[in-house]
């Protein structure tokens, strides 16, 4: 008899039947549609940066899978009660715990398979587009733990409270739980408590997360520990299911203790179940305690001191991708733009956007001779783009030049880079701290507030590129009515001048313009 033709052990044969007759495959097409239109379309809207794309696993995929996993597991768990086979299966010799575990495994196998297939599709698509790095595994572990715990919750609810409505109620409950987790993550701050790091859902990470600094696994470890602990405890509860069911039916402490001690499988199995419940609770409790010690880390994420490795804090050596710096047709070398290879896909769009603007201001004091991408977080502070060094270089961050998050990879990307460089040039601002990186970093990058004359000049310089920046920032409120009209009129006048005349005026008045002593009316 060959190994292949040997009959499977009894438990494996039961599992084969459970897999064959599971309800999950019937709903897989619907799950695939939800996955496609939510998880995958959201990921497609992100730049092809591994950490960013992988963030949809916690923020969208778990949400999509959660309701299905909870509901389908509750359906499977409630089968014996719903189909009234409790007496029949109770007369069989295989332990009830083993029987329920196999049924749970059948459902969990299908759900994990579907989950991993979804992750594979997401990662293959990302691999085809990404220009640097590799697939992060911790989001997959967290996601798999999330699917497992929701399945365990649903299954246990089905076993203990079997009924027709258990599955839909668990599905709805899972949706609400996901929402609550997301909401908890949204208020994440040291002031309001750090327990929200336990939620697998949260804000998308910085655009360059994992590019300049490693993403430490601390928070992922705590999440897996929490969810694994809950799943383990629930698995133990299944070993005491007969007693707990009796307790739910009859009630009363004495009856409860007698039921737990005397019903179900033999005493060794029940003791093992009790030990597993204890271990699960201990693991989850430890995870919660560890989450309470979470601190913002230098790279804009969160670290757990007890789990943190100093190696995670070391910067990743940057592999640059640059445009040519060789001398162009003129006397000056070409305006060189460098980005991390992770962002190679936008090197040429950025260079195309910045080079003509750089040409407009070339030769003026403080005008950048090149542009270079830098990390968007330093020392836990979000970094705002600026001009620095000799010769001056426009240091931009993937996060903060792109305006609001959605503009990064869309139509507005080039315009945002142009405006970002002119903002820094006219306001003469070096890269600077923009506030704690963990607080909604995407919204820190509002355009630099400029003076009225600076704004008029910026509008005029950007006019040849077919757009005008929206006048924004704190100063915008005072530019109502006549003041705003003055800015726009000055921009039109200045824009109408020949390029050489504009350049000459700027050369003569740049210091005064930066100092704020020029008014729009003084602009030719």
């Amino acid at each position, binding site marked *: 008899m060959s190994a292949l033709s040997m009959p499977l052990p*009894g438990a494996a*044969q039961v599992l084969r039947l459970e897999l064959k007759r599971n309800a999950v495959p019937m709903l897989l097409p619907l799950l695939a549609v939800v996955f496609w239109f939510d998880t995958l379309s959201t990921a497609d809207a992100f730049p092809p940066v591994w950490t960013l794309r992988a963030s949809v696993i916690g923020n969208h995929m778990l949400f999509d899978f959660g309701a299905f996993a909870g509901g389908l597991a509750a359906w499977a768990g409630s089968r014996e009660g719903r189909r009234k*086979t409790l*007496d*029949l299966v109770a*007369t*069989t*010799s295989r332990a009830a715990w083993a029987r329920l575990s196999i049924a749970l495994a059948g459902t969990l196998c299908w759900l994990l398979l579907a989950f991993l297939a979804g992750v594979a599709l997401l990662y293959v698509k990302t691999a085809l587009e990404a220009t640097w790095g590799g697939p992060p595994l911790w989001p997959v572990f967290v996601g798999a733990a999330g699917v497992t715990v929701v399945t365990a919750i649903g299954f246990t609810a089905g076993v203990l409270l079997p009924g027709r409505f258990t599955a839909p109620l668990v599905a709805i409950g899972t949706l609400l739980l996901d929402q609550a987790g997301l909401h908890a993550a949204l208020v994440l701050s040291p002031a309001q408590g750090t327990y929200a790091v336990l939620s697998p859902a949260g804000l998308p990470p910085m655009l360059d997360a994992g590019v300049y600094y490693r993403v430490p696994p601390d928070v992922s470890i705590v999440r897996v520990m929490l969810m694994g602990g809950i799943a383990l405890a629930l698995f133990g509860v299944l070993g005491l299911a007969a007693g707990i069911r009796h307790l739910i039916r009859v009630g009363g402490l004495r009856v409860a203790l007698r039921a737990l001690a005397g019903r179900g499988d*033999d*005493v060794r199995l029940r003791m093992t179940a009790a030990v597993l419940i204890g271990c699960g609770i201990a693991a989850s409790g430890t995870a919660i305690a560890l989450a309470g010690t979470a601190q913002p880390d230098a790279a804009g994420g969160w670290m757990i001191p007890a789990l943190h490795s100093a190696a995670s804090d070391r910067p990743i050596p940057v592999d640059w991708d640059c445009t040519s710096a060789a001398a162009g047709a003129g006397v000056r070398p070409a305006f060189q733009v460098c980005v991390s290879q992770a962002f190679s896909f936008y090197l040429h769009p950025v260079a195309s956007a910045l080079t003509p603007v750089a040409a407009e201001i070339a030769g003026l004091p403080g005008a950048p001779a090149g542009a270079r991408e830098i990390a968007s977080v330093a020392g836990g502070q979000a970094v705002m783009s600026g001009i620095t060094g000799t010769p001056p270089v426009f240091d931009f961050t993937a996060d903060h030049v792109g305006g609001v998050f959605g503009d990064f990879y869309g139509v507005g990307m080039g315009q945002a880079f142009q405006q970002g460089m002119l903002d820094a040039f006219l306001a003469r601002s070096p890269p600077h701290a923009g506030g704690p990186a963990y607080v909604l970093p995407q919204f820190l990058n509002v355009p630099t507030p400029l003076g009225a004359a600076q704004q008029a000049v910026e509008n005029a310089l950007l006019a040849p590129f077919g757009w005008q920046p929206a006048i924004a920032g704190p100063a915008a409120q005072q530019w109502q009515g006549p003041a705003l009209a003055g800015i726009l009129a000055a921009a039109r006048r200045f824009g109408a001048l020949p390029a050489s005349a504009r350049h000459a005026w700027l050369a003569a008045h740049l210091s005064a313009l930066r100092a704020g002593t020029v008014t729009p009316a003084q602009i030719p």
Partner: protein
Amino acid sequence: MNVNLSDVRRSFGKNKAVDGVSLELGTGVFGVLGPNGAGKTSLLRMLATVLPPSSGEMSLLGRDPGASAARRDIRRRLGYLPQNLGYYGSFTVVEFVEYFALLKEMPSPAVPKAVAAAVERVDLGPKAKAKLRTLSGGMLRRVGIAQAIVNNPDLLLLDEPTAGLDPEQRVQFRSLMRTLGQGATVIVSTHLVEDVGAACSEVALMADGKVVFRGTPDELTARGQGHSVGDAPLERGYSAVLAEARP
């Protein structure tokens, strides 16, 4: 003796479902008769090790079902058909019977053959691959019987086994019970007295949780002489015993 009960009682709150039953049974087909609420199903559930007795002593297949290791061994050698058979509609006939064979921890290599044999014995061979949700009530009853006998049990408990079967199937099933009774203890709880007359070598009649008659079907028939209630002789015996038992 495969079944040995001594003053077994089972109460649900103040209700005494089984009230001091003592039985000793070897191989053969044993019928349990009685009106609704007499305690037949509770007695069978105790014999099936689903329900522990409130008091009294039980020995099944020479073992004490109160001890978990012994209970597990008893369950390996037990077949049970409950009064209301639950089933999984998405399973086929073969899968359902196989599922229970595996839950009874039959040796894996023996399962396919045993399943095929059990399905054939209840005459469901042509429907072996049909989903349970597509079967009629009578066919489902036969599936239930197949899962009960798949492990060739030494103790077979059948609660209303012929409910839903057509006359031809009932005749076949009585024959099957007689065959099974040659090597095992078969306990049939029923309210159909003709089943008892045709298949059982011994019968007990329960009323209010107590055994009020025990003997052969012929002896029960004899108790009905001169009694007018009932169409068949056995029914008259049944009615006569019950009438005597009522206060």
